[in-house]
């Protein structure tokens, strides 16, 4: 007679809907995180892991001294990031942060190209006392000392 359910059944239906939504959201989130999270590498890890070209990632390390070149267009730079064990060439187009200099720490966000050059979409440099990219904070003590020394000179 009525399309209205008994109170108890109605509550059951609502609980089931909520559970299904939670499961769907959870599954989708798990799938998304598995595929879309961008991993952090230092150069030696990047070369070991060798992510598929196009997979988003973050590369952290020191900008090798003497490696910085500006392309003729004036906005594209090439440099080499190293962690003492290995080094990876990086290309970036844009306005670089003011604390980005050779010999200092940097985190590049982007992806590894098929040619082995890391294409950075953005660069994070050591900023000030209050804001340091987390990955720079977690570098080994020696690396950190070197970075701090270089950026406070």
């Amino acid at each position, binding site marked *: 007679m009525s*399309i*209205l*359910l*008994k*109170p*108890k059944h*109605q*509550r059951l239906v*609502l609980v089931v*809907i*909520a559970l299904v*939504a*939670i499961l*769907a*959201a*959870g599954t*989708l*989130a798990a799938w*998304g*995180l598995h595929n*879309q*999270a*961008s*991993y*952090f590498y230092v150069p030696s890890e990047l070369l070991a892991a060798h992510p598929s070209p196009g997979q*988003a990632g*973050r590369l952290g390390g020191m900008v090798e001294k003497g490696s910085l070149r*500006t392309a003729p*267009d*004036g*906005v594209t730079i090439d440099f080499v990031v190293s962690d003492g064990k290995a080094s990876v060439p990086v290309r970036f*187009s*844009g*306005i*670089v942060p*003011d604390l980005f200099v050779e010999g200092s720490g940097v985190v590049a*966000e982007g992806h590894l190209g098929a040619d082995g050059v890391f294409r950075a979409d*953005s660069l994070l440099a050591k*900023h*000030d*006392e*209050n*804001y340091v*990219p*987390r*990955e720079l*904070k*977690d570098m080994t003590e020696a690396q950190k000392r070197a970075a701090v020394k270089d950026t406070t000179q």
Partner: protein
Amino acid sequence: MIAEIGLAALWLAAALALLQLVGAIFGQRPGGETLALLVRPAALVQALLCLLSFVMLLWVFARTDLSVLLVAENSSSQKPMIFKIAGAWGNHEGSMLLWVTIMALAGGLIASIERRLPDKTMLATLGAQAFLGLGFYTFILFASNPFERIFPAPMDGNGLNPLLQDIGLAMHPPTLYCGYVGLSIAFSFVVGALLTRNVTPEFARVMRPWVLGAWIFLTIGITAGSYWAYYELGWGGWWFWDPTENASLMPWLAATALLHSVSVLASRDALRTWTVMLGLIAFSMSMIGTFLVRSGILTSVHAFAVDPQRGTFILALLAINIGGALALFAARAGTIAEGERFAPLSREGALVINNVALTAVLGIVLLGTLYPLLTEAFGVRVSVGPPYFNPVSAAFVFPMLLVLVVGPLLRWRRDRFERIKAPVIAAVAAGVVVLLALWLIAGMALLPLLGVTLAVMVAVAAFLPLRGRSLKRLPLPVWGMALAHFGIAMALFGMSVDTAFTVEKLTAADVGETIAVGPWRIRLEAVEPVAGPNWTALAGRLSASYKGGAGHRLVPQSRTFWAPPQTTSESALLTRWNGQLYTVIGNATEDGRWQLRLWWKPFVPCIWLGGLLIALGGVLSLIGRVTRDLRRRYAVRKVTARRAEAAA
């Protein structure tokens, strides 16, 4: 002296919160009536003392009293007054004091004006509010004292992060905090109702304006924050899925869901348990968001450097508050009576979908925000960004918006599809036309394409519930709903169009050179030095003409601050009805050219206009509810007076 008065007032406020809690606990028992009488005045005095403490903090910042550690670390004498004052909450300790001050003021406000609920429930509510407050007082007094002295006082302070030296800082955090902390009222009402087994439509009606108020503040805060990040960071983006942005989005999602479910409970006495659950979740999200971010556990542009001891304290506080509330919910959920029944095709049914979808998105954002923390425990460092958040949350938001087209047209309890067929077909037809047209002509990516389509459908549907009703007699909350839904459509339109059609140009230009960006021709006329109160800058003088029209002047700057030493880029924006031109100047190249980054962003202002419309809808609705309530209160008083007269 001023700092000491502030600290003393804070200790006294904490003592009064304790008194308020004790009064609320023992006032419930027989013989405790005298104690119960103390509770409301205690809440009010606590609020005033806390406000006094906060004013003292503003004062030491205004005077740049460098013998106070916080001032020495975060301010400097050579800074405009507005930023000296705003700097009071641009740091961890000050923002905590702001948080607890707003909390105490909100508690004092309900204590003085809210008289509709039964005494017992009200007592328990104020007790819960005092309990929450005590936790934060303890945290400030023992782990983040803003009034600590430093000896000897330094010659000058460290200054404020230049990114924060903006009018945005004066407005943005207080607005957001009003929203975060306003939700604590809903939390306390729910705890009070659970403790005294009084989850009723009346309780929902009492809670509704508070939820609405907090939600309005959150909406404005998020909108303003997004615009601030957009022009201040100079990256041309308006949402970065940064942990701090997520921290404000999560309570907003929960509050939006709560706002809809509390309406169902107030008007139809259904969804009782669910509303109660959301009330607890909303403020829990405020706390999780704020403290996970502020504790420095998650790092973002906004995080203040905080020591691990504070982090532990904060985690313990979160565990007690949230764990306690969930335990109470688990214990009492069974005693909440089942609400009224409704058919699947009804206003309630649509609102259930809205609630479920919003909660799912909340879960998705929460997981994405916490995931880096989780993997780090296993030694893997990841970051989660737009490639995760955009598609995964759209999977729930887009179906929800489809329901939004239909929902407001439905009647409560049960409805027939035939009754609403005509308007629904009209809205869907508009959507299909737009979808086909854009797909054939513009060749957009999937998400923006669906976004524009849904925006058109929701925009059409937003005003359909007004059809056939007398516009003059229409209650304000209905206007508010229509406007807020239209705001959603507008914001979505702005986001989708900007994503699909932004034109970006990055180049190094000689002085005198002209650059083409979309319909614009932009000429770099000169680069000149400029000086401000605590910075110097290089300013690029640009002349921009739209489709060959007259030249407009834009002056983006690259600023160098000296306390603390840092360079920021000040973007220059030009707004037209159909979009915004966004210009940034970078560094000089070795051969004397200047780096310029230029964007033409069609319809991007719709995002923030939409956000403001959503908030305005909330304001209309709030005015409507409050005036109706006052009118009813007046009528009741009149009737009682007349009855008393008749009896005499």
